[in-house]
């Protein structure tokens, strides 16, 4: 098969502890160098924590896996300085089209409003993404990447974890204060700790073909129900980097995976879709079945599960890596505060609470999409077809068409880290919501709010057209240097004396998106979710919210 990508081979070097036979204690060991493990490792390293990453392989993800990365995951990577390369290499898109037979029934726009730094979605082959993350991890000089290192066992002790690791040089032991298990859907650590991974297997098979071709399909997600070229089944098309196109054909449960993978079976399917004359080459072909399951709790003592090891979804909606990355984002700042003795151990339980809530939301969406695409009964199929029949002419039916509800970040509505609203606010920036972007100018430089939020606690004081009252500024300065440190910014509606921490809301998007009135204060967590908000500055309320947000 053709290949547009050459897989890097990362050198295995035996660790010093293995060579010298000494057992060393590490603050954090991450198991698995997939997208989620690498995100956690880079984030920790950038927060000053040295990390050991163990991976049983010595290259990036092989073959066809994730394609679509959503805005929120990209924002997390952007905070770490990794997103730009992905965006540059990837294909930016936001429009999805749904066809039934040969006519379009529905179209959606994933980012209908302007003025966001990061696009709604990019498409990029998973191997590029992993390669970029590995490069960025090396730059931190705090990530000790150990390839060809398979974790064989995990034992929890009172104040640490002991791992047995197998390498080409044999087995050695290593200790960690904390372990983050990012070892994927087949997680062996989950099994070692005897944890149940419950959910549903969908009785359907999908043929996934990555095809190299010069084609003039637009950079959009196209989904067909019952197209003329693949009757009674569905097909999905996505553009990726390097003129590689991802095509998914639904095959049905009865299909023989080995037969279906053969080029003599795949090529006619592609020709029927693309036309006899379109030149293409196969890059990769595989046949998948999908599952929707999760762990009950993402924490077990000193071991955390993140990404596919904690939850597995069907790919319709691109909620796999896109929800694994926010797992890492949610965990790392909490772990750092606990390691620093700022926050109590119980803060780490909120990692599981918040991300289990997110996983439930993702699983619900993913299961619903799968039920629509792969109806489980005759009547379910009838209703599905009825929706599609109506959707061409009846607007209401279009909103029932479910070809995958694409990944959006979770608002932690029920989190105990939130300070509930005491004042009236409109809009989406409720406590627990991921902060939304807005263009801002800082010291004469055009920029973005998300960049100013960074990776620590941030207070945003909206002063409107006035200066921040001196006593408010003084109190904020004082509180900012407290036990739980934070940065604060004055958001103003027009340029003033250009205070170092002033952000000018250049076109009013901040005011609009945060429903801000002069005096409004927002407290934002290190993972850029809203912790609390008030119409007027009150030092006690802010201090209370800060404590609450770290579990004190």
């Amino acid at each position, binding site marked *: 098969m053709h290949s547009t990508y050459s897989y890097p081979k990362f050198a295995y070097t035996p660790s010093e502890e293995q060579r010298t036979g000494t057992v060393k204690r590490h603050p954090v060991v991450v198991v698995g160098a997939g997208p989620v493990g690498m995100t956690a490792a880079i984030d920790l390293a950038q927060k000053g924590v040295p990390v050991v990453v163990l991976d049983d392989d010595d290259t990036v993800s092989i073959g066809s896996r994730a394609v679509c990365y959503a805005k929120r995951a990209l924002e997390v990577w952007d905070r770490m300085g990794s997103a730009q390369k992905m965006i540059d290499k990837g294909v930016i898109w936001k429009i999805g089209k749904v066809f039934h037979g040969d006519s379009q029934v529905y179209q959606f726009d994933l980012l209908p409003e302007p003025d966001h730094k990061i696009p709604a979605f990019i498409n990029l082959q998973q191997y590029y993404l992993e390669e970029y993350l590995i490069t960025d991890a090396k730059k931190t000089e705090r990530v000790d990447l150990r390839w060809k290192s398979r974790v064989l066992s995990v034992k929890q002790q009172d104040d640490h974890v002991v791992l047995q690791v197998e390498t080409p040089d044999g087995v050695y032991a290593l200790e960690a204060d904390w372990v983050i298990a990012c070892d994927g859907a087949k997680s062996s650590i989950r099994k070692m700790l005897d944890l149940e991974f419950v959910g549903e297997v969908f009785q359907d098979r999908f043929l996934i073909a990555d095809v190299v071709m010069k084609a003039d399909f637009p950079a959009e997600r196209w989904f067909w129900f019952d197209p003329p070229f693949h009757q009674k089944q569905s097909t999905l098309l996505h553009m990726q980097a390097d003129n590689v196109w991802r095509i998914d054909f639904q095959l049905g449960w009865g299909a023989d995976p080995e037969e279906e993978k053969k080029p003599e079976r795949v090529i006619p399917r592609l020709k029927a879709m693309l036309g006899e004359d379109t030149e293409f080459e196969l890059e990769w072909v595989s046949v998948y079945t999908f599952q929707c399951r999760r762990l009950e709790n993402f924490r077990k003592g000193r071991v955390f599960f993140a990404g596919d090891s904690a939850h597995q979804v069907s790919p319709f909606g691109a909620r796999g890596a896109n929800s694994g990355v926010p797992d890492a984002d949610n965990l790392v700042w909490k772990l750092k505060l606990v390691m620093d003795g700022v926050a109590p151990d119980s803060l780490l339980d909120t990692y599981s609470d918040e991300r289990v809530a997110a996983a439930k939301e993702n699983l619900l969406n993913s299961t619903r999409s799968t039920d629509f695409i792969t109806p489980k009964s005759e009547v379910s199929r009838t209703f599905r077809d009825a929706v599609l029949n109506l959707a061409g002419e009846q607007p209401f039916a279009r909103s*029932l068409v479910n070809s995958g509800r694409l990944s959006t970040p979770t608002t932690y509505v029920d989190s105990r880290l939130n300070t509930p609203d005491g004042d009236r606010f409109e809009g989406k920036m409720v406590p627990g919501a991921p902060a939304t972007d807005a263009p801002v100018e800082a010291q004469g430089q055009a920029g973005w709010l998300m960049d100013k939020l960074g990776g620590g606690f941030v207070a945003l004081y909206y002063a409107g057209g006035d200066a921040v009252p001196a006593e408010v500024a003084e109190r904020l300065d004082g509180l900012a240097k407290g036990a739980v440190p934070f940065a604060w910014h004055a958001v103003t509606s027009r340029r003033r004396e250009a205070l170092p921490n002033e952000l000018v809301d250049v076109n009013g998007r901040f005011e609009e998106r945060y429903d801000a009135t002069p005096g409004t204060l927002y407290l934002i967590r290190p993972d850029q979710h809203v912790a609390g908000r008030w119409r007027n500055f009150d030092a006690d309320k802010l201090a209370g919210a800060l404590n609450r947000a770290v579990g004190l």
Partner: protein
Amino acid sequence: MATLVTENRLANPDDFYEALIDTHRDLSAEQSNMVNAKLVLLLANHIGDMEVLKEALRIARKGV
């Protein structure tokens, strides 16, 4: 909150019933299933109230 109306609201119930049966004339069971499904979807959207719909779903399922 609206509740499902279960008293008769049809000015002429027999007219409706006849029209319903007529709609299915000469259709196979499979085709009729499709018509019924479309009908449910159209009417559900017209009602547009999840509580009312849930009540209707519950009653429809009862005793089957």
